[in-house]
Structure formats: C-alpha cells, structure tokens
C-alpha cells in the first residue's frame, strides 16, 4: 500500500478498497447516524441544488436545449475552455512530473520550500492569482514587456487563459505523482541499469509505466479543474466571443442578459462534462488498483 502523505489531499486511490471485508455485522456503532448525516447533507448542499440545473434544462425541450447549449458561440466557448484546459493540463503533466521527480529524487538547498510552494495554488484565492497574473503578463507588466516586442502576447489571449490554468492545475499533478514516485523501489531501476539499459529506457520502460495511473489522475484533475475555472481566468482572458471567451463566462454573460435558459443549458453541458471527467478519473484509479493488486 502506498504511503499516503497528506500532500495528496484530493484524490488518493479510491477509499473503497475492499481489503478488509468484515461484512455488515460490524460492532462499530454510528453507521445510521453518520450515514444519515452524510446523505442528508450531501443531498441538501450538492444533489438537490445540482438537480435544479437538469430539471430546468429538461423543462426546455430538446430543440431549445440544443439551440441554447450548442449555439455557435457556446461551442466556441467550450472549445476555448476545453482547449486551454487541455494544453494547461499537458504542460502541467510534463512539468508536474519534472517537479515531483526533482522533489523526490534530489536533495538540494530549499527543497522543503519548493515543496511547500507547489501547494500555493490550493491556498491562494483564484481571483488574487488572476489579477497578479494579469499584472505580470500584460503588455506593460513585468514579463509581458519583454514578450510583447517579440510579438508574443499572453494577457487577453487564449495563451493568458492557459497560463492561469497552468497556475491552478500544477499541484494536482505534483501531488498525485509524488507519493507513487517516492514508493518506487530503486532496485528495479538499478537492476535494469546493470543489465545495460540506457537511462531513458529505464525511464520509459520501468518508471513511466509505474507512475502512469497517478500521472493520468493528476492530469485529469488539473483538466477538470481548468475547464470550470473562473476567478483566475476572468481577469486575464480577453473575453472575446469566439476567441477568448470561456464557457463559465458565457454562463455569466447569458445570466446578465436575462437568458436563464441559455445559462442553464450551458451549465448542464458543463456538468455532464464534469461527470464524465470524474468517471474517467475513477476508472483510471480502478484500473491502477487492479494493476497494483493483481
């Protein structure tokens, strides 16, 4: 069993590990109480409110739903949201893996600080990150002033959105990969090396397969978070329909022009996408559990 450091707060391997099947006849009390509380609270805060989206959307009729939820502008917004989130998640998969590798494998001055810094996006409010990133990457900002003359615009373009999503998503990858990497035994690698494998072969054949499920989980989490992200993106995105307008912003925009139906339809589409992503994450985890157990 992997050491579960608290640094992996969001999605550890699924807790439903059936390794201790005691059966329902447990002596431990409080099942009814805690289960009742859980179900009640879950229903009140999450399930009933979320169902309001679907009920509203269902009340629209299919044709209206498609017209509102898949208008050209909405489709463009999904493309922006999913596209930038995908690129950001890929960048995070690469650099998150690198960061996790460096943190686990090397000892260097300031390692603890770097390790703590990785969690900054969990702790720093998204809106604060948004205005800070805008200040940095705008044409007159700290970094932007050097990029702009090169013809490379970040703020107010989809690139800016991607930058914000990289910020938001990085810890998901690092915190997913880190514990698995730490648990890898060095012996297999050493054996492979002693058998004449090149280091990159060791990485590709031994290390990568072992950490792949964790990497995929981190990637999917970063992606899921990025698709729905609003606070950090809104300041740095140019908000131009068809180019830099994200789907959550379109929901807000539709609300502000009193178009509740369109807002609800887009929200329903986003929700279904969230469900699908969550399902994918759980499948990856189930797959990795089977690999580990089997």
């Amino acid at each position, binding site marked *: 069993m992997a050491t579960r450091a608290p640094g992996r707060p969001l999605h550890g391997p699924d807790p439903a590990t059936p390794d201790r099947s005691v059966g329902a006849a447990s002596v431990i009390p409080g099942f009814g109480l805690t289960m009742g509380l859980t179900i009640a609270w879950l229903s009140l805060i999450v399930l009933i409110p979320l169902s309001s989206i679907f009920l509203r959307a269902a009340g629209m009729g299919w044709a209206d739903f498609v017209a509102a939820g898949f*208008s*050209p*502008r909405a489709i*463009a917004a999904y493309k922006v949201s999913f596209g930038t989130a995908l690129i950001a998640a890929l960048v995070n998969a690469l650099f998150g893996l690198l960061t996790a590798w460096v943190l686990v494998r090397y000892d260097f001055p300031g390692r603890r600080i770097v390790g703590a810094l990785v969690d900054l996006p969990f702790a720093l409010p998204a809106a604060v990150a948004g205005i800070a990133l*805008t200040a940095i990457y*705008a*044409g*007159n*900002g700290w970094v932007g002033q050097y990029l702009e003359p090169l013809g490379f615009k970040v*703020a*107010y373009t989809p690139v800016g959105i991607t930058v914000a999503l990289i910020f938001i998503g990085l810890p998901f990858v690092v915190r997913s990969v880190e514990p698995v990497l730490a648990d890898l035994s060095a012996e297999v690698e050493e054996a492979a090396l002693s058998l004449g494998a090149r280091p990159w072969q060791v990485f590709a054949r031994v290390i990568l397969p072992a950490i792949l499920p964790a990497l995929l989980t981190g990637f999917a989490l970063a992606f899921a978070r990025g698709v729905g992200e609003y606070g950090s993106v809104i300041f740095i995105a*140019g*908000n*131009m*329909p*068809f*180019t830099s*307008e994200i789907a959550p*912003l379109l929901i*807000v*925009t539709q*609300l*502000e*022009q*009193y*178009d509740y139906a*369109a807002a609800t339809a887009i929200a329903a589409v986003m929700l279904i996408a969230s469900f699908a992503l969550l399902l994918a994450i759980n499948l990856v985890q189930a797959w990795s559990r089977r690999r580990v157990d089997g």
Partner: protein
Amino acid sequence: MTQRRNAAIAALSLAFTALAGCSADGDSKGATVELLNVSYDPTRELYTAINPKFAAKWKAETGQTVRITMSHGGSGKQARAVIDGLDADVATLALAYDVDEIAARSDALTTPWQTRLANNSAPYTSTIVFLVRSGNPKGIRDWGDLVKPGVQVITPNPKTSGGARWNFLAAWAYGRQASGSDAGAEDYVQRLFAHVPVLDSGARGATTTFVERGIGDVLLAWENEAFLAQKELGKGRFDIVVPSISILAEPTVAVLDGNAKRHGTTEVAEAYLKYLYTPEAQDIIGRNHYRPNNPAAAAKYATQFPQLKLVTIDEDFGGWQAAQKRFFADGGIFDRIFAKTKR
C-alpha cells in the same frame, strides 16, 4: 470533554442561527431607515458625493437617519440581480432597457415607470467620447479613424455593459450617417469590432484594460469616465477626443415601488430620486462630469461639455425595446457581426 462538546454544539447552533436569521429589518418607522441603491459601474464617485448630502437633508427635514447602501456593477448584471431578488429600493441604471426588464420580469417595479420623474426619469445625461493616449499618436479625430490599420479600440461587451450598448449605437449612428444606409452602418460597425482586442464585461473593466494595462489606442467611454480617467488615473497621460457625432445617453432612475412598499421606504426612496433633480445635486452631477439637466448647473459646467451632434435612442432607434431586440438580443446584429468577424 462535555464542556468541549457543549462548546461545539453551541458553535454549530450559532452557525445555523446565522444561516437562518436574516436581515429582516424592513420597518422604517424607527429613527433609521435603510435604502439600497443598485447602480451601474461608473457612478461610484457620483453617489459617494451625493449620498451624504441627501442624508443630511433628510435628517434635517424628518429627523430620520437614512443609511444608503450602494451596489455597483455592469448595468445588465445589476438588473438581473434585482430580478433574482436583490431587494433594492431604487435602481439607477445605465439605460432604460435594464429598468424595463426589471418591470417586465419581476414584481419589484410597476409600469409605467419612466414618466414618474422629469426628463424620462434621467436626472442627467451623458454621451460617448474617445479617450486616446497623450498627444493622440494615432491621429484619431473621428469614428472613421478607428477602423484605420493598426488602430486598436477598447470597448466593453454590449451584451453585459450598458455603456457598451451606447458605444455600439453611437458607432452605428456614425456608420449610417457616413454611408447613408443600415447596410453601410453594419459594415462599419463590423470593421470597428475587428479592431477590438479585449471585450470586458463592464465599463470599468474596459477602462482598466486601457489605462492600467496599456492595451489599445482608443477607449470608447462614457464622457464622465473619460474625464475621470484623465483626472484620476494619470494627468497628462490621456486626451479626450470628441467625435463629430455621438449619442445622447440617458441613464435612468426609478424607485422600485414593489420592494419599497414592502420595506416601507417608498417616501424616502422617492425623495432620494427627486433630490437628484435639485440644484444642489445637479451641481454635484456637473462636478462629476455628467451633463446636468438644471440650466444653472449646465451653464456652470458648460465649458466641460463640447457641443456635438447627438442622436437619441427614441428618435433614431425607435426606443430601447426595439433597439435591444434588433441589435443585442441573441441572434441580433451584434451576434451576427461577431459570427462573421471571428470565423
């Protein structure tokens, strides 16, 4: 242990009480009365100046203390909040359409509302001008210069910002005048929006983009915003350019009678809006770069406000209901323009 447990239970019940117990002080018969004014983005400074003056006057007349709470945001967003149940007593929004929507979609306001106060319920007017960088490096004199190669124009999103809708219609008026046809106007506006790199959701966001982030060569702005930006944000950094033609912007105010009746604040809310028409308030309005109705205040601040040809929403666009439907509703001209320019 029990002590700690009791503390936990106490904390929890406190939390639930806070959740359930809500601000239900609607009774105005006391010594203090609360007024909630839901307004659009650029009026922050204006009402910051007006509210204490009105409060002092109300206190002197009735002995009652009035506490005015402000909420600012894009005009459409604010109207939406009122429709969804933001319990405001007065709405002071960027355009009549948003107030119309409140009346149409909620019981907060009864119709007809626009005839209840003078000048179509607009205590002041304004218009749309250009803010350019100091020395006007791109040589922008009129609307035609905005679509020259290499010029970037900043304007907020007409779907969400009241100011942006005035911007759009002013541009349309120029296009129609220059070309003589609606087709020509649409062509001009389409070319104009091809020069827009950022579409903020409110007037304030657009100004920030232009001023602080240094994006764009021209900001299409409320006249009052342009003055404010010039005065507050960087003396000598910006120039105001007055185009040949623009639109008479009439931000409208209304007592949300449905809400006010429930709160028992009708009287003070009506007095508050009437106060906006008094010479004292009109002077504050002029000082904040809005065009006052009152002749004395208008004369006093006349040098600020250049004369230019102004079209009006009612005469040139058939009123807000028609204009909204034609230009800004889903599938309207604005959507069409974007669908064409961006693909």
